[in-house]
């Protein structure tokens, strides 16, 4: 990409993302509008190419490409389909930039809309939420104004963003408790419904969200509790994961087995009894002829490296998706997406 030297799209993206209110897809859209601003493209073809290159550069550098992709795709589709009959290409570029920025400003009001939609489904009682989501926060705070709610929030390891949610809620006066990710099934009978945000809503009507959402959805289904997702429409993504491992965020490192430093070393088996697990025991046959080796320590970093950031929740586990285009069933989401991009 010839533009990368004068304009670093990733730096711009990170700068925009520093704004607490702006989510990843929006930041991507704004970064792309800045790219247009800095681009010297003279034709539509060049411009679209520059945008595609920029999007690609972003994806390469960003840690989690899914929601970023949703934003890039939306904006590029918008630019390509934009009626460009104006004789002056600079005018067109200005118009595109204006439209992009307008969209971003307007998109910030979406959360309010979603909160109002979801509010109708909230009654006095307990809610389970997962990790941290701006739109969930806004919804809960709105609900707190009119209803007596209490919130259970999962810790959401490895990033531990649930603690952030609990702190913010407690500060606002909402009774909230952080629960372990492993305690979801324990708490499920106490809650009325589950409310989660989203990284992306995909074409199957399913949900891509911080890891753990899928198991919460499965437990909620087993306990017959509704599972609601909140998603701004710019998070609708033209993606169809067939399984967890079909997500673009999946890589070979996730779920890989750590290789012991020495080839002959029997790993993990001599770990101190407090964290020796069942799984490792049957993974390798106990050969206790090397007792002098230092038992390997498993660090938090290692764990989070071998684990996914996001997972995919199947559409049949989701009760409703609240978005600024309305309260949609998962089928409705997929129909909306098909209508938006197909044809």
């Amino acid at each position, binding site marked *: 990409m010839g533009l990368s030297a004068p304009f670093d799209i990733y730096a711009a993206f990170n700068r925009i993302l520093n704004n607490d209110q702006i989510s990843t897809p929006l930041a991507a859209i704004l970064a792309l509008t800045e790219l247009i601003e800095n681009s010297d493209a003279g034709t539509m073809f060049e411009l679209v190419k520059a945008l595609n290159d920029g999007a690609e550069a972003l994806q390469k550098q960003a840690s989690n490409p899914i929601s970023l992709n949703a934003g890039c795709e939306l904006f590029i589709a918008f630019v390509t389909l934009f009626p460009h009959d104006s004789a002056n290409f600079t005018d067109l570029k200005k118009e595109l930039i204006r439209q992009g920025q307008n969209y971003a400003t307007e998109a910030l009001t979406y959360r309010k809309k979603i909160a109002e939609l979801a509010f109708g489904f909230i009654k006095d009682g307990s809610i389970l939420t997962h990790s941290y989501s701006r739109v969930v926060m806004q919804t809960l705070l709105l609900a707190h104004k009119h209803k007596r709610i209490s919130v259970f929030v999962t810790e959401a390891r490895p990033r531990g963003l649930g603690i952030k949610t609990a702190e913010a809620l407690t500060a606002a006066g909402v009774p909230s408790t952080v629960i372990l990710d492993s305690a979801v099934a324990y708490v499920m009978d106490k809650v009325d419904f589950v409310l989660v945000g989203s990284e992306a809503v995909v*074409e*199957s*009507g399913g949900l891509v969200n911080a890891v753990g959402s899928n198991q919460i959805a499965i437990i909620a289904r087993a306990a017959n509790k509704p599972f609601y997702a909140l998603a701004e429409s710019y998070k609708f993504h*033209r993606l*169809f994961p*067939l*399984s967890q491992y*079909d997500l673009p965020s999946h890589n070979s490192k996730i779920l890989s087995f750590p290789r012991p430093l020495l080839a002959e070393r029997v790993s993990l088996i001599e770990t101190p009894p407090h964290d020796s697990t069942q799984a490792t025991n049957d993974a390798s046959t106990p050969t206790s002829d090397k007792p002098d080796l230092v038992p390997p320590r498993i660090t938090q970093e290692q764990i989070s490296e071998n684990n996914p950031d996001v997972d995919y929740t199947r*559409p049949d586990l989701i009760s409703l998706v609240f978005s600024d285009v309305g309260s949609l069933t998962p*089928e409705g989401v*997929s*129909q909306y997406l*098909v*209508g938006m*991009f*197909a*044809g």
Partner: protein
Amino acid sequence: MPVPTIADPPPSAGPKPQGQPSQKTMTKAERRELQEKQRAAKAALKQQPPQGQSKQQQGGNAGASGQQKAKVPPTPQKKSFGAEVSASKQHASASKDGGASGAAAEELTGKQLSHGLRIFSHFGQPKPVGHTIKGDIHPATIRLGLLFSEFKICGANARCIAMLTAFKQVIQDYTTPSHSTISRHLMTHLSPQITHLVSARPMSVTMGNAIRELKLEISGIDIDMIEQDAKKKLYDYINTYIQDRITTADKVIQELAGKKVKDGDVILTYARSSVVEKILLSAHSEGKKFSVMVVDSKPLLEGKELLKSLTNGPNPIPCTYALLPALPSLLPEVTTVFVGAHALYSNGAVYSRAGTAMVAMMAKANSVPVVVCCETYKFSDGVMVDGFSKNELVPLSIIQKNSTDRGLAPALHLETLNPLYDLTPPTYITAVVTEVGLIPPSSISSIPLALGKTSL
């Protein structure tokens, strides 16, 4: 160019009774009665020599011709069943004291048989290969009809392409009569061709869709247009249709579905679909390392062909070939199931080769994603809820040709039922790959609208 036609033999085969006036003056009921009588007589004649139970047969036939007011099964084979059944019934009712348990058993089997026939009779018995030709049929159509009825051209895509190609020839050889215009007359010329093809084998959804589009195009021709130009226009239209809706669509599907094939995958497919074959071959040529399990089943054993083309050449795909009963043992190894489709209904149900539903169901039970590959021109506006309301039977000749052993010889009390298709409910399907992208089966109905089709 004069089109050779084979004249139909005059319908009145049997000698007319003396006292009868001409058929025209008879009432409908009378004519039917006459027909029934003639047919019954013929069937009785046919059956008498080989079977030594002529007495029962005759009694049965008399009963049958008396009873069967509505529908007479078309082939003598079937007739003998009907006759047998009614005969055994009569027999059973005659010995009503119930002492003979053998008679009761006989009645049971008889009932089951008649039950089976009654349920599946609407599938239509496949016509014999050399069926008669009525009207002004183009040689290309006759040839195609033979290919269809012998299952030489079998798949939904292949049949549609072959039909359109034949129609190109028909249109080329067509001259508008002086008193009419092409937009009004061509369709009346094409209709018998279509009827002929349908009589060879029931029409596929793909052919129906293509014909509908073609009709629309024909009726839209300006009446002032010079005939040659109009033909050229139709010719181009057919070419574009094949190109856009089938060839290019397949390429896009290849690309989209190819993304779902990853290194180390084990792909399972059932029978043979041209699209799935292309997907696998193109993914393999991209250098992806995966293996394929071809699951197959009687009577057509189409998977063998797929297996041949996948393992052909210097760089074959590692394949496993298995029959349907082996499916449960294979599924735990499988990462994705790819199947083709004959048609897709608007409720998301997939109408495909018999056995597909079972594969999809089992894959779902093993939580293996099921991907259906299907071009949008295979979409049907209708709704199907089971595979019984509409289906097709595999002709006996084709089954015998495919199986080395004679299998179940047609016995008196046994008729093999070989439906050609079944219906996979949308709940068993993870995704449908079309040229407009991957879509969940629940959103199938919104595709025509998204493609700008305003009316059904």
